């Protein structure tokens, strides 16, 4: 039987090569940009000598593998380059924007779990009834609705028509917690409903599987009430895959906030990449893509470990 340490080591064996490949892809993205970066850096009124000097300074005249190792070496010590527009280091930009998106992702996840799990349970326990169908329609709507449109519609209703919530902007929690939460209510609902749809579908599937299992049938035969069967026996086991799914979905939320942040003018990670694309700040785009992918890979890694811990059968399966 495999222990937790062995499992972690085995998973690390696949995480590390994946991270190396991600770095190769991100490096390739930079190299695929048409044009000579030294010419672009030198500007319009430069001469050949300046361009040559820049080429030598930044190592553009070196073979590709030398450039890659130089770049990855810098990245590993936190040097992603600098943003010429903001005149700051890319790593500082990322460290400023990431907590904003992380807060939005946490709030969205709370919305998603609060809606997704109960709706999934209803969809499974009321399978052939009207309420079950309604729960399924909700899940499908959550998956299908374009979230940036939902955001616009919510602004229209709650900000323009009713004047209840701010339509845009962000206040840090340490400045004014109430305003901070008010500014994040609509974005969290927008992002949360999409994830809620996914969680509803998975909870429903897992619940249906557990509810038809032998031990639930035995519990029912022993006269245990349906309420206890669902809440005590079925839900605990059905939630195991949902917990791991939520970890992965959290990773998606960190990056999926791009349009939501754009609509609600939230200065987070998503807005950073969009602005960087418009101002052609490739170092920022590279940094954001690399950090996003790394977070996603690490969250998948955590999800696998969580699954291993909560599901004892995995230990036998990995022998």
């Amino acid at each position, binding site marked *: 039987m495999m222990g937790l340490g062995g499992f972690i080591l085995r998973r690390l064996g*696949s995480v590390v*090569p994946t991270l190396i490949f991600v770095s*190769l*892809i991100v490096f390739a993205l930079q190299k695929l940009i048409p044009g000579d970066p030294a010419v672009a850096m030198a500007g319009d009124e430069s001469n050949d000598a300046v361009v040559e000097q820049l080429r030598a300074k930044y190592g553009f005249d070196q073979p590709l593998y030398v450039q890659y190792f130089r770049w990855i070496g810098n990245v590993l010590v936190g040097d992603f380059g600098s943003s010429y527009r903001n005149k700051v280091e890319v790593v500082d930009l990322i460290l400023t924007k990431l907590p904003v998106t992380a807060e939005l992702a946490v709030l969205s996840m709370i919305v998603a779990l609060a809606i997704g799990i109960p709706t999934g349970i209803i969809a499974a326990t009321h399978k052939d009834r009207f309420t079950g169908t309604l729960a399924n329609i909700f899940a499908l709507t959550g998956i299908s609705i*374009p979230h940036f449109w939902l955001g616009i519609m919510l602004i229209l209703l709650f900000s323009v028509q009713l004047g209840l919530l701010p339509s845009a902007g962000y206040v840090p929690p340490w400045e004014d917690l109430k305003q901070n939460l008010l500014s994040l209510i609509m974005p969290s609902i927008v992002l949360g409903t999409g994830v809620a749809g996914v969680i509803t579908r998975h909870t429903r599937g897992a619940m249906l599987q557990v509810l038809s299992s032998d031990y639930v049938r035995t519990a029912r035969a022993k006269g245990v009430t349906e309420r206890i069967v669902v809440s005590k026996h079925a839900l605990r086991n059905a939630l195991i895959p949902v917990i791991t799914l939520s970890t992965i979905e959290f990773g998606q939320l960190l990056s999926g906030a791009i349009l939501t942040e754009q609509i609600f003018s939230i200065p987070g990670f998503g807005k950073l990449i969009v602005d960087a694309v418009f101002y052609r700040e490739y170092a920022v785009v590279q940094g954001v893509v690399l950090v996003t992918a790394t977070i996603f890979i690490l969250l998948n890694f955590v999800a696998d470990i969580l699954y291993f811990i909560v599901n004892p059968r995995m230990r036998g399966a990995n022998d």
Partner: protein
Amino acid sequence: MTDAVLNSAPVRSGSRIRSRAVRRFLKHRPAVVALCILVVFGLVAIFAPLIAPYDPIKSDFLAIRQPPSALHWMGTDELGRDLLSRLIYGTRTSLMAGVVPVALALAISIPLGLLSGYVGGFLDSVLMRFTDALLAIPFLVLAIALTALLGPGLFNAMLAIGIAAIPIFLRLARGSALAVSKEDYIEAARAGGNSPLRIAFKHVLPNMIPPLFVQATLTVATAIIVEASLSFLGLGQRPPAPSWGSMLNEAQRFLPTLPTMALWPGLAIFIVVMSINIVGDGIRDAMDPRHKS
């Protein structure tokens, strides 16, 4: 094709399985209704010039930002362009942006997946690590990063979405090829003296398509949303050509005065994407009844 080939047992059983799947799909009422809705949207896209009451890019400065009326059923935008006509032409953009990238991704993933799954070895390991790495970059982030490289525009956006979709199909095609190549009939074909190339293309390839078909349907829905997102950000369809995403972008500026401008394009995306998801569920249930949703 000769009669002998047509009457051969595998073909007969294959067509029987297909017709059973079609029958099961037709019994899935929501999927049939959703398919009809998609057919209507498809017809609207094809016959847009005949259906649209106005030129979608022609400005009319005497009819700026008008609410819905008998003349302009959905109203007009800030340049006096008829919103219904723009919505109708936008159907073309959205459906094309859903189908073209998926076709591109399939065209690259199927042969690569077949090679990776059937041949295996070092190539398989490298391709799968590469796929894992690409899958770690979220779809929209990858599409945005690629569009940043390629430059804005509908063609580039479709190309970026297609490239971003490759890892999804490559992994599935490889898994499918791997599973099919372990089947008894492949072993039988091998024992029968068929060349590996013939086995790969004649026997493995046709049998690895069905699971890809379901994924392709669902990815069309994702591609439509991603294209709308890119156009919304100004990275997709270039103005003045209409697209549902860019219409929403324009609408955002006039939300307090002309809310209907934002209503229609979003509703159109929602209906099409929801229909595709329902059809996808229907196809999956019809092809694999054990997986009934």
